[in-house]
């Protein structure tokens, strides 16, 4: 009985989209760390991507509403540990990101290179060249850096590795 509810909720949560990357679900981003029953309440454990991400509050509400379609007592709990990492984003999700014009995180190496003072090599999601330039390590949202392609000349977002 409980397991059935949990399974239905999990299935439902697979269609809750990220408000800032509306082509991806919060599940695909690895933000749901668990769905558990505690006494008579279903707890959805959510880990924020960045501490200050303003989308976190909206996601909390969206998850709550979605789960309440299935069960009355739902609570969303923020979990900090272990800290969210882009390593939790699957290969197929990365592909989807690239298809939508956002250069996905590529392992850890690219961003380590930046933090150590070297240039990052991030391929352009449109023309695939590696002839690209970091414009700013801070982009349109907390999770993205701003790049520019030197071949097709398009600006693009890169999902930072953290």
């Amino acid at each position, binding site marked *: 009985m409980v397991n059935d509810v949990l399974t239905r909720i999990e299935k439902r949560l697979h269609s809750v989209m990220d408000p800032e990357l509306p082509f991806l679900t919060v599940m695909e981003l690895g933000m749901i760390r668990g769905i558990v029953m505690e006494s008579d309440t279903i707890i959805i454990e959510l880990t924020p991507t960045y501490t*200050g991400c303003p989308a976190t509050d909206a996601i909390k509400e969206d998850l709550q509403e979605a789960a309440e379609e299935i069960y009355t007592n739902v609570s969303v709990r923020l979990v900090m540990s272990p*800290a969210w990492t882009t390593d939790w984003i699957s290969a197929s999700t990365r592909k989807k990101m690239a298809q939508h014009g956002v250069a996905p995180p590529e392992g850890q190496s690219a961003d380590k290179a930046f933090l150590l003072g070297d240039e990052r090599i991030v391929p352009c999601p449109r023309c695939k060249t590696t002839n690209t330039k970091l414009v700013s390590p*801070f982009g349109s949202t907390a999770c993205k850096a701003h790049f520019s392609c030197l071949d097709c000349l398009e600006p693009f977002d890169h999902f930072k590795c953290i």
Partner: protein
Amino acid sequence: MEGNNSPWLLWLADDALILGQRLSEWCGHGPVLEEDIALSNVALDLIGQARALLTLAGQREGQSRDEDQLAFFRTDRAFRNLLLVELPNGDFGDTIARQFLFDQFSLLRYEALAQQTIDLELAAIATKAIKEVRYHAAHSAKWIVRLGDGTDESKVRIQASINRLWEYTGEFFMDYGMDSQWADTGILPPLASFEKSWLKAVQDVLAEATLEPPSADWMQKGGRIGEHTEHLSFLLAEMQVLPRTYPGAQW
């Protein structure tokens, strides 16, 4: 982790909150669009860290105060932030110099907090925050090099900014008699122990930037015990006016 250790949690939380609020004043006023976005992003990260830390501080003190109560309903004398982070933004060089000096310290402090295993809730926040602060520190250090090793004008001005702010860096390493409370619990080593690593990190960047490390024989103090500059009161007036005028207001 038991016990009322919120006084020094407020040191961490208030540094992040006040610097985040201060930096957010750049939103819409950055020298170029990319930098406007960068400073606003850093501000957002800091406010995010402050929210997590204030929530924890509120839970620990056990007076049912949440993050909003602590941020919006304390008066200036109850804030525990460093004097450095409440100073006005000045020009872009002043803001970058302040950020650089603070980021190098913040990184060391969060690294120590992330490594300890006594207070796991605090370690979790620190582990998360480090990932963000590494970006801040890399960004502000790059600007120090670019301005220091830039034009004659930029070099003179960034050197002047660093010289002017230097007397506020001594407070990083002052414990105001709280030393034993930090150290005895094993959560954080005495603050003075960070000074050498901080100085080395700062001097390395200044050398690359062809800038001179300043010296000061006297350091400002008072932030940690609520003795602030007048600037904090003006900052709080702006930050707190809405929740104080309309308590419990919702969007």
